């Protein structure tokens, strides 16, 4: 299948005050996003999933720097484009939705204007035509009374409505790729389901590919076709969504799944992965997950595992990939 975006060997580092050495937040990441599909990017906070997406968009903070790799999008390497070329793509062919609908909209500009702005910028539409299109997309993303909401300020809308505005803004130009950075994390569960359904419907209609960044495996199961699991700046496992939920191979992925709260007898402790994410400046020499891994053997401490194929389109960065049914700590799930 044709890929709309191919990220190869992407590495990103950050400088911080008073430290000479740059912290490597993303290290040699490969991601493929097929046209019209939804790809999940899963991992804990700080694993580099947002940094990966921001570097593709050219929106890294001033202290961040792409160290190497490529991101091929429609025959162009996004990482090599200058700012002017990148601006042609941003908001037009690749757009983004962010985690915080509360703070992602400008508080002193009416929401309709903020959406129309993207349209006018890339299509040169006049104010009147842009307004008509904006009201239309507001209706499409399920904003009641779209005409009236056009002139509303963000503080007059609920979180769910604001996220719908953000989705409208991102989808108004029918981009090839939508990067959604935890779009439902700040919303309550009933709204979350509505927003996910909305994204899926819009995708079906426009054929947009989605890169869904989340730490919520439920969202992945709901929406994604394939998944990349990231840990400490590296992809540790990738698979079709069914293959992953059926039989994940990396102990970290297994730990993530076991961490989902479920109906357990009262008093039984919730599972969590022991230990913490390693410091970016003090990565373990071998496998980055080894210090927290229940299955680690001596080899894991000293040698870096490569990404190996464990099944059809299923890859895992582990010397001893789990077989079906194994659970962290050796107990069956």
């Amino acid at each position, binding site marked *: 299948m044709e890929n709309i975006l191919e990220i190869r060997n992407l590495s990103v580092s950050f400088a911080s005050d008073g430290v000479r050495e740059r912290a490597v937040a993303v290290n040699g990441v490969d991601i493929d996003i097929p046209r019209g599909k939804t790809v999940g990017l899963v991992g804990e906070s700080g694993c580099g999933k947002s940094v990966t997406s921001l570097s593709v968009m050219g929106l890294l903070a001033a202290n961040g720097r792409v160290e190497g790799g490529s991101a091929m999008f429609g025959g162009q390497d996004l990482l090599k484009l200058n700012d002017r070329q990148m601006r042609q*793509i941003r908001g037009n062919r690749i757009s983004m939705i962010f985690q915080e609908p509360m703070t992602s909209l400008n*508080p002193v500009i009416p929401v309709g204007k903020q959406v129309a702005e993207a349209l006018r910028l890339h299509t040169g539409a006049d104010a009147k035509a842009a307004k008509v299109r904006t009201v239309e997309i507001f209706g499409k993303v399920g904003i009641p009374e779209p005409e009236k909401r056009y002139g509303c*300020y963000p503080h007059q809308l609920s979180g769910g409505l604001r996220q719908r505005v953000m989705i409208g803004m991102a989808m108004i130009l029918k981009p090839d790729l939508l990067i959604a950075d935890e779009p439902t994390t700040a919303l309550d569960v009933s709204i979350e389901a509505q927003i996910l359904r909305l994204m899926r419907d819009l995708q079906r209609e426009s054929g947009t590919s989605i890169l869904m960044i989340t730490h919520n495996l439920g969202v992945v199961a709901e929406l994604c076709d394939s998944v990349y699991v990231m840990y400490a700046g590296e992809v540790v496992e990738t698979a079709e969504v069914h293959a992953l939920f059926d039989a994940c191979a990396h102990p970290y992925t297994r730990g993530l799944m076991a961490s989902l709260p479920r109906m357990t007898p009262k008093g039984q402790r919730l599972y969590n992965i022991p230990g913490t994410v390693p410091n970016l400046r003090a990565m373990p020499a071998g496998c980055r997950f080894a210090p927290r891994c229940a299955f680690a053997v001596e080899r894991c401490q000293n040698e870096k595992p490569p990404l190996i194929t464990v099944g059809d389109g299923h890859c895992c960065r582990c010397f001893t990939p789990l077989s079906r049914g194994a659970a962290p700590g050796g107990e069956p799930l």
Partner: protein
Amino acid sequence: MAKHIVKRVLITIPVLIGMVLVIFFMLNVVPGDPVTVMMREHVKEDLIGRLRQSMHLDDPFFVRFFRYIWDALHGDLGISWKLNRPVTALIAGAFPCTLKLAVASSLFSWIMGIPVGIVSAVKKNSLIDHLSMGISLFGVSMPVFWVALILQNTFKNVLPVSGIESWRSYILPTVVLGWSSAGRIARLTRSNLLEVLRNDYIRTARSKGLSPFSVITRHALKNALIPVVTMMAIQISSLLSGAAITESVFAIPGVGSLAVSAIKNRDMPLLQGTVIFTAILIIGGNLVADVLYSVIDPRIRVE
């Protein structure tokens, strides 16, 4: 919106009355007899008595206070003891000079302060940032009389340094007053803009494909300038009430100079008049700032 403004205006009435009471009381307890101020020495006792009576100086405090309020409401702030002219006329005569100076120095401070603040924020930690923030800090920290004297001395051969001859006489006092205001505005603009630029909605604006220039002008400035605009409104009101020190140093016959001369001459009605005039302008400035705030920030707008 209109209701909000009316409410704010009504609140200022008790503030004004309280303020006049305080000023009136303070100037009453200050030692010194007005009649001896007005008269030369060796004046006949009965003349002094007659004068005291005609000025109602022997009436009880509150009688005099309410008479003053009543007269003030009719536009009469009394007669200057020293100059023997109505205080309102004196203030009205001095105000044009003060107004010109206030408008000029405010414009100067806006035109200098806001762009300098923006450039400093955008080029944070660059040479131009350090340089302009240094000059701003200098303007804010140096006493105006000192800056005024140094400028007078430096430019004495190029520009008029005393009195009002032509528009050129306003240049130096404008710079003296505008420099410190510009410094404050530049520093506030810079710090607000830096804070705003860290917000999520700036990232959203960039993700739409807007150029850095549009991101600043369309998205960041509108947020960053909200506190700056209110500061400008308060600043201009205090400038309108007369910059006593600057006007004195440059011998500009404005409201500030009038107040200074009233203090020197113990001219109570005149001093009272200028202080009340100042206070009204400051209260008015705050009112304007408040209303402006709710006009430009939709979050505060009253539904």
